[in-house]
């Protein structure tokens, strides 16, 4: 299985020489196609910085990030934008849907940016909406939808262009537990049925228990790695909790 994402020794500094903060301190890992990887860590551990570096929203101070074999740290701003719309899909904590557009249009936007022919757009939007169970919602504006529906629309937008890698930043952060569960089931479905690759940042052990592999980060460094075996989700959750309690910092939500 080829690696979709290969991060080598990433470092990210803030501040100047006299007062240097290392947000990321030599992190390296690989993500293969069809994996659902979670990144966990306490607040300030560097997980969002890591995601920003991978998503090209921020740039790493040192190290290499290869996506599909291409080093994104060495790209020009224009190439970065092109790369981002072609190869990456985003899901944000606060959904980030455009409130002026309907659900359909929000999803179609991702394809419009790619200059996909109009005929193709319609079929693909309807197709992905079907998979995520939001066909009924397509004509609604974001403010007419529930939080769960909004996040699934955001999810549809992220997946519709068939990106190599979907990056999700605390996608369940603004959802109630029921909606969160539906969304996470959808993620697993995307991985299983559409062979999507998802990298999800979360501090919530319950959300993390849906992943196939979890990377734990502390003080900008890789602290531990958990791989889900044939165990049940509950068992996996318990193992996560053990590591989280070792990590310290964050209070743990109960399943």
């Amino acid at each position, binding site marked *: 299985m080829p690696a979709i994402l290969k991060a080598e020794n990433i470092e990210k500094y803030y501040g100047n020489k006299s007062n240097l903060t290392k947000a990321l301190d030599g992190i390296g890992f690989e993500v293969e196609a069809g994996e659902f990887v979670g990144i966990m860590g306490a607040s300030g551990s560097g997980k969002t910085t890591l995601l920003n570096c991978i998503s090209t*929203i921020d740039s790493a101070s040192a190290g290499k990030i290869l996506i599909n074999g291409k080093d994104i740290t060495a790209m020009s701003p224009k190439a970065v*934008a092109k790369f981002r719309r072609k190869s990456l899909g985003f899901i944000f904590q606060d959904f980030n849907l*455009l*409130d002026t*557009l309907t659900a359909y*249009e929000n999803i179609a936007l991702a394809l419009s940016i790619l200059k996909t022919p*109009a005929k193709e*757009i319609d079929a693909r939007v309807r197709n992905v909406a079907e998979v995520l169970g939001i066909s009924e919602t397509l004509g609604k504006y974001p403010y007419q939808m529930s939080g769960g529906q909004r996040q699934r629309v955001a999810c549809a937008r992220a997946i519709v262009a068939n990106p190599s890698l979907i990056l999700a930043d605390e996608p369940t952060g603004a959802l109630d537990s029921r909606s969160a569960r539906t969304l996470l089931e959808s993620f697993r479905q995307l991985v299983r049925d559409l062979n999507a690759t998802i990298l999800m940042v979360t501090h919530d052990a319950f959300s993390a228990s849906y992943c196939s592999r979890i990377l734990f980060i502390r003080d900008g460094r890789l602290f531990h790695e958990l791989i889900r075996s044939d165990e049940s989700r509950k068992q996996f959750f318990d193992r996560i909790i053990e590591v989280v309690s070792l990590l310290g910092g964050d209070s743990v939500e109960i399943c």
Partner: protein
Amino acid sequence: MKSADIALRNVKKSLRDYAVYFLTLTFGVCIFYVFNALESQQEIMNVTKSQAAIFKELGSMMDAISAFISIILGFLIVYANRFLIKRRKKEFGVYLMLGMEKLKVSGILVMETLYVGFFSLLAGLAMGVMLSQGMALVTAKLLQASVSSFKFMFSSAALLKTIIYFGVIFLLALIFNTYAINKQTLVGLLYANRKNESFKTPRLSISVAIFLLAIGCLGYAYKIVLGVGPSSIITDFKSFTAAVSLGAAGTFLFFFSMSGFFLKLIQQSKSLYLKNLNMFVLRQINSKINTAYVSMTMVCLMLFVSVCTLSTGMGLSSNISGKMKEEAPFDASLTAYGTQDENGSPVEAYPGYDLVAAAKEQGLDLDALSSRYLAVRYYGGEKTIDLELENDSAGIILDTKAVFIKLSDYNAVLEMEGLAPITLGENEYAVNYAPINLSVRKAMDKYMENADVITLRGVDLRTSPKNLRRYILEVSKNLDYDANIIVNDELVEGLPILRDTLHMNYLIQNESSERMFREKLSGIRLSANSKLQLLTREDVMETSNSATTMVTYLSVYLGIIFLIAAASVLAIGQLSETSDNIYRYGLLRKLGTDDKMINKALLSQISIYFGVPMMLAIVHSVVGISAADRLVINFDRGNILSGSLFTSCIILIIYFGYFLATYHGGKGILTRDYYLQRKGIE
């Protein structure tokens, strides 16, 4: 930090985003000063008495117009302030949350308004004083006055007036701002940006119905303007009001219906709608057009007023000056005529004078003073020429009494003008009229097709179209309807003498010979019931120059103020909308949209906002100008369309300048925000 410091810092910060607002204010102040300082420009010119009178008249006209202009500028400033406050709600909310009193927040705003007012007033006045120096040369040219000595002009009266007027305007803006802040609640200010817009797009069928209604209103208004006679447009107050109110209502409904209509229309074409960021742009516009149609309507109507005044005014003035110059074929014409009672009939028969001899009696040696002179006698009678003036629904019948001239006199006048003489057959007469008025020309052509038979001394005289001449025979200020009948010399005997006119060309053309003529000729004494009138080319020119100057300045003043008001309302609206939408554009960037695509989206959004009102305004203007054109033909002279072309270019340049400034300003807002984000500052 004192509130004055915060205010100054805020002004500096927003200077970049709202350069357009500051520039417009400065420009407004500048123009206000320049036109109010017109009167002081005579300092550098050698002005005649009548030119001084023109300056005085200009001054009082500018006084009246300025009051009106200040109302428009007042509206503009209050409107702009509303936008500026709306955009900064959150900032004020933070001040309040930090425990600042409302009074102090208002204080910051007061200081800001004062700073902005002070700087724009200062800059505007400086610009105005400089521009005023150049304007003086234009005025001198328009009035054909000579510049005596070029020195620095400064009108303290205009300065004071500008300061007072704008002081009052800023004071109003200040009161308004304070009120706007005071009525806000903290929660409203803090969550100003998060409020969900509600989209109350009317149903398509309703939109279409309103759209059709708008088209109907506009069509009917156009029909009134174009259909009925133009003279009745200004005389018939009722249809004028109807046209204006229907036009305004139609414009309003047009933009109102566009909100639902436009989007739905484009949505029909999936390939267009889903292409690039079209969908985003259209939705952006649609989300705002519900509130923007009022300002769109205002902008459209202001542009309409601007285009019409500028082009009609320019066209009119160039025509007046052009035509008037042709109207004076000689340096001077001295006319002796009998006085009339109130009914227009002569008090006693005018005996006729030999003006050449009368001049000699006064010791005026015509041979020594003039290169050419010529006395012409005009005869009256009962005969009238009935002209049916066209392009008026009522149809005016002009029945002027015919004025007869001997063929020899007529040919002598032509010869003095350097024109070929004419010949007449035994039973023929010719008609001459001054080709000033187009409708008279048409009516005259028609008349000649089937001209009356005139009987003089028992001889029946006829004429044909080939005997129609179009020359100006004397120096006069009003030649519109003068028609002369030229007959063979012996036939005038027995007709009553109407007047005698002495035409002269000066030997040396300067002011002193003009003055001498005037003095000497005024000494000529005639009988009690006869009068003398001297009209010189100079007189005609001054009338024309005065009219030209008035019309030009009036139209430029009004037109430019309306134009910059309209353009800056658009510009400020668009810029503040762009900064409101930073997060939307930011999201597009996160999704991987590149700068080129985003800029294109911004460009097309701004283009639509600038283009749509302008397009409707152009349609309005074409109708308005063509109506004004016919009005001018009927009442005055000439054709104003030629003037429109030149002014259209100027209008488009200014408008386009505002458009570009808005686009670059908006691009700046978005780019700056993006890089701030990338650097992690925000």
